[in-house]
Each structure stands twice: as structure tokens, then as C-alpha cells.
């Protein structure tokens, strides 16, 4: 019996439900699978070496049982979940695990993963946390060292042309993701927030060429779909820490709202800036991964050397892009969310709220513990927020 190959959103749904199926097929064909945690590991280098980059994520529906032996319960539940399912063997197909210095617990997880999950090859990219010129220079050196290590792992060398070609493929993917997000500017959006998250998760489970092909199908399908999402009153931007399951978005969209834009890391954050093509490709990659990605793990301020700072000017320099997103995607309000114990995002919340208040954008903050059970009480709060912004 010939099984029809699914396309577009049907394929996305298939991948969302069984992310690892395709990479396991590729592994059986002889490909090496490079798992990576967070959006800071440089996937272009993996692609240039013909490795398959595969985003390591958690599973909020899987009770955490094994990782408590290695990570205390008072740390990020997403990272605990990643380790938990790693310990349970669900990442045994990985040939490499690439981590980076995302946050302190993430760094601890890197060492713990190496010691306990024992993926055959492991590398931690020590990405700096500021955007000084010296930090950029350090990032370039760190990425060159990463490239060398990956070349040793893969058993081949990357030429600048190979790396440039990989950058172009990934930039093509970024451009298509932005095109997909453009379709959410319409009212109603042509694709829901929940569907968008599934698409992002799907393409981060595939080699870049296959991800790009899938994106072309999805974009074509979305633009011509007959059964479009129905109109709703509220259009929301969701900001914050990892959302790798549609549960929260579905909860929001079960109300009279769509998530039309996001600033999260299984969302727009990795895709809204291209890597510039530079003579030495590492220069463009360093600029992108250190400076362009707007994650709170990187410290930014309007003027590092100013003795006296204007608070609101500083907030504007850091967060005006959110106001632009709200404006461009015609959002009514912003939901700020983070997992419990995420200091990186949690510390950012008061200042983002101050900024949004200053520019007249209503917002609400939701903290959750990366379980489905956490969502029910939040629904009431979101409902109340929607009533306010209407």
C-alpha cells in the first residue's frame, strides 16, 4: 500500500506529533544528527558540514521523573524537561549535542547532559552576554573554535563558500518564515498562532532544504486556504520564554483572540534578522548570533558608558521593536509569559511593562510551570485581559 506523502500544514501536524520520525529516517540513511539547545548554536555551520540540525526541546506533557536527580526542582522546568526526556532515551538518536551559554542553568545543563545522557559528541559554545566590540571579537573567536570542533566531528573541512551557501539556505528559511508571519497581519490572520508554532517546530526538526520546501508548501496553502480562521476581536502579541507546545496558545486562541505575532524562541526570534553575507562568513554569523537575536540573555543598554541614564530612553532602545511589532501586526495587547524560575525573562518583565505602559500598549504577565495544569487558572486572567483591551 502506498502511503500518500503529506504536504503543507498536514505534514506540519505530522511532524508536530512525531518530531523525530524524519531525522531517524535520515540517520538510518547515514546522516549525522546534531541536536542543539536554544537558538544560539550556529545551525549554518552544521548545515555546511551536511549534518542535520535538530532542535532539542522538552515535553510539557511528560511528567518529570528522572532529571530531579541532577537538577533541583527550583530551576527552569523546560530545561529539566529536556534533560528528563534525554535521560529517558528519547534523544538517543543524536550524534552530537550542541549547547551554548544561554543562562546559568543552561550552562549547568550542558555539563550535566554530557555526563548523564552521554551523546557521543558534545560541544558548548561560550557565547558572550554583552554586545561590546570586544564581545563581538570574542564571539568570532568562539565560533571559529566551534567550527574547528565540528569539522573534527564531521571529518571534513568547511570552506568559506560552503559556509556562505549554508547561510544563504538558512536566510532563505528566515525570509519564508517572515513571509508566513506577514500573512498574520491580515484580519483575520491567515494562519493561527497555534499553527505558526507547529510550523516553526516542524522546520526545526528537519534539514534546512526540507524545512524550506515545507515552508513553500505551507505559505502557498495558507495564502489560498478556503477554510480561513474566523474573525476574532482581539489580536495579541506573545513575548517571553520558551513555548514549545501549542497548549498555551490554544488556550488563548480558544477565547476571542488570535496570537498574531510573537517574540519567543520557538517563534519569530530566530528568524526576523538575516545573517549578513560578509567576506569572512564568521563575521556575519557572530553579528547575527550575538547582536541581532533579541533575547534577554544578552544584556543591552542604550549607552554602556553613560554615567547617568535616562530610564525611558534606555527602555525605548531595548524594546521599541515590540512596539513596532504591535503596530505592524495591528495587535491590541501583549501577553508577557515566562516559565517559573526563568530569571532571564523574569527580570526583563518589569521593564518591558514600564515601556509598554509608556507607549500605551496594554499588557499582562503570566508565569507558568511548563505543565498543562498551569493553564486553567491563566485562562481566567487572559479572559479578564481581553475584556479590558476590548
Amino acid at each position, binding site marked *: 500500500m502506498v502511503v500518500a506523502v503529506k504536504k503543507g500544514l498536514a505534514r506540519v501536524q505530522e511532524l508536530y506529533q512525531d518530531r523525530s520520525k524524519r531525522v531517524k529516517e535520515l540517520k538510518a540513511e547515514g546522516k549525522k544528527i546534531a541536536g542543539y539547545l536554544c537558538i544560539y548554536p550556529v545551525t549554518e555551520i552544521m548545515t555546511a558540514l551536511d549534518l542535520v540540525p535538530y532542535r532539542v526541546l522538552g515535553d510539557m506533557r511528560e511528567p518529570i521523573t528522572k532529571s530531579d*536527580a*541532577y537538577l*533541583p526542582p527550583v*530551576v527552569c522546568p523546560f530545561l529539566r524537561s529536556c534533560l528528563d526526556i534525554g535521560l529517558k532515551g528519547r534523544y538517543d538518536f543524536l550524534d552530537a549535542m550542541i549547547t551554548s551559554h544561554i543562562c546559568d*542553568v543552561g550552562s549547568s545543563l550542558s555539563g550535566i547532559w554530557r555526563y548523564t545522557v552521554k551523546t557521543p559528541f558534545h560541544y558548548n559554545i561560550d557565547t558572550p552576554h554583552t554586545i561590546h566590540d570586544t564581545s563581538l571579537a570574542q564571539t568570532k573567536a568562539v565560533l571559529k573554535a566551534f567550527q574547528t570542533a565540528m569539522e573534527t566531528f564531521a571529518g571534513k573541512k568547511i570552506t568559506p563558500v560552503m559556509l556562505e551557501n549554508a547561510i544563504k539556505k538558512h536566510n532563505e528559511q528566515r525570509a519564508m518564515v517572515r513571509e508566513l508571519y506577514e500573512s498574520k497581519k491580515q484580519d483575520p490572520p491567515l494562519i493561527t498562532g497555534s499553527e505558526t508554532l507547529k510550523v516553526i517546530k516542524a522546520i526545526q526538526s528537519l534539514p534546512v532544504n526540507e524545512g524550506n520546501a515545507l515552508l513553500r508548501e505551507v505559505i502557498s496553502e495558507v495564502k489560498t486556504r478556503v477554510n480561513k480562521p474566523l474573525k476574532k476581536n482581539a489580536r495579541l502579541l506573545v513575548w517571553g520564554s520558551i513555548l514549545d507546545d501549542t497548549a498555551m496558545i490554544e488556550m488563548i486562541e480558544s477565547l476571542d483572540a488570535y496570537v498574531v505575532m510573537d517574540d519567543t524562541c520557538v517563534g519569530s526570534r530566530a528568524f526576523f534578522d538575516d545573517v549578513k553575507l560578509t567576506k569572512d562568513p564568521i563575521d556575519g554569523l557572530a553579528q547575527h548570533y550575538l547582536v541581532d537575536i533579541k533575547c534577554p540573555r544578552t544584556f543591552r543598554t542604550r549607552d554602556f558608558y553613560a554615567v547617568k541614564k535616562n530610564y525611558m530612553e534606555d527602555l525605548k532602545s531595548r524594546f521599541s521593536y515590540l512596539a513596532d511589532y504591535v503596530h505592524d501586526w495591528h495587535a491590541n495587547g501583549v501577553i508577557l509569559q515566562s516559565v517559573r524560575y526563568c530569571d532571564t525573562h523574569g527580570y526583563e518583565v518589569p521593564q518591558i511593562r514600564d515601556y509598554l505602559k509608556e507607549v500605551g500598549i496594554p499588557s499582562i504577565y503570566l508565569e507558568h510551570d511548563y505543565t498543562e495544569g498551569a493553564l486553567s487558572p491563566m485562562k481566567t486572567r487572559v479572559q479578564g485581559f481581553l475584556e479590558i483591551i476590548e
Partner: protein
Amino acid sequence: MYNEVKYRVDHGIAAINRPEKYRMSFEGLAPWHSLSFLDSLADRGWNFVCESAYSPGRPFTVDLTGVSDPVERYVRKRYRSLDKVIDQEFEPKEAAEVKEEIMREGSSNRLRLRHVREYQCDGVVLHVLLSCRSASSGLSLFADQLLDMYKVPSLIIEGDIIDTSLFNPVESLKKAEAFEDTMDHYKKVRKELGFEW
């Protein structure tokens, strides 16, 4: 203070002014708000001979001849490369093994746990802090590696630097009492396995 400590060392007087029953290491930030808890442990003969949060590295000489820039002199003097640390802490043969282990595995338990071996600790207290995930997130693995490598058990005592209500000295002391049986057991295990202590 130096003279006082030297006198104690020269005359074998334990820091705790009581017979030493257990040599201990403290991992994590100290419970500054409840240091008297450590006196309760001292009453039981627990002598904290080392800790890893604040102890400085061994001093070493840096050749700064030819370096005139004062900022560069400061940085070079302060910078402790991993190579230098390993060469300082271990004999040449073992230093080479540790470096090879790091190249192969990415880290070395021998390097990380060396103070427990050097001070011949019977047990380690891990002070897991609710609000300092930077300090606390690696402690569970530390306990696992320590037991695996040197057969030294660990006791987890939870607390916080900011929220003092999270630290329960009464409960922690009960855990400590029970932990003494564990330490006694692993003393025997180490002896059977031929460890130095």
C-alpha cells in the same frame, strides 16, 4: 590572626575546639543569616575543613617582564588559565591525565573534586539555594560524581540567602544526625576499596 591559626596548626588544635569526628566540605553559598547552625554541627564534631565558594586559588608567579601596560599587567596577573590551575594542583603525571580527560570528556571530576580528596573529607554539605540557581543547579551532579569517584556522600540542606524562612535549622540538624550513619558507612567503604582516607 595568622599567628593564632599557625599556633593551632602547630599544636593540632581543631578549629571547632572539640574532637573532630567528621571532616566536611561545604558547597554553595553559606547560610549567612544562620551561621550558628554550623556551631550546632561543630558540637557534633563536624569540622568544615574546606569550602569551594570563596576559597582563593593557590598563588602562583606570573612572568610580567616585558609587560609595561598596567592594565595588561593586572589582567595577566589575575587570569588563571585552566592549564596553570591544573599544573599547580596536581603532580605532572596526574596533571597530564587531567588535561587529557578534559580534552576527551570536556571536564574532569578529579579537577572539580580535588579539594575533597586533598582535605580528606568524610562528607559534603550541599547548600541548595532557592534563589541562586547559578550556584545551586550543578550541586546534584556534584554529589553524584563525588560518590562515584571518591565514595564520599553528600547531604543536601535547602535554604536561601534572601528568604530566611526557607532555611529550617531544626529540620536540617535532624538530617545531619541521620547523615552521620551514611558517613560512617562510606568510611568503611573507602577503607575496603583502599582509598587514602
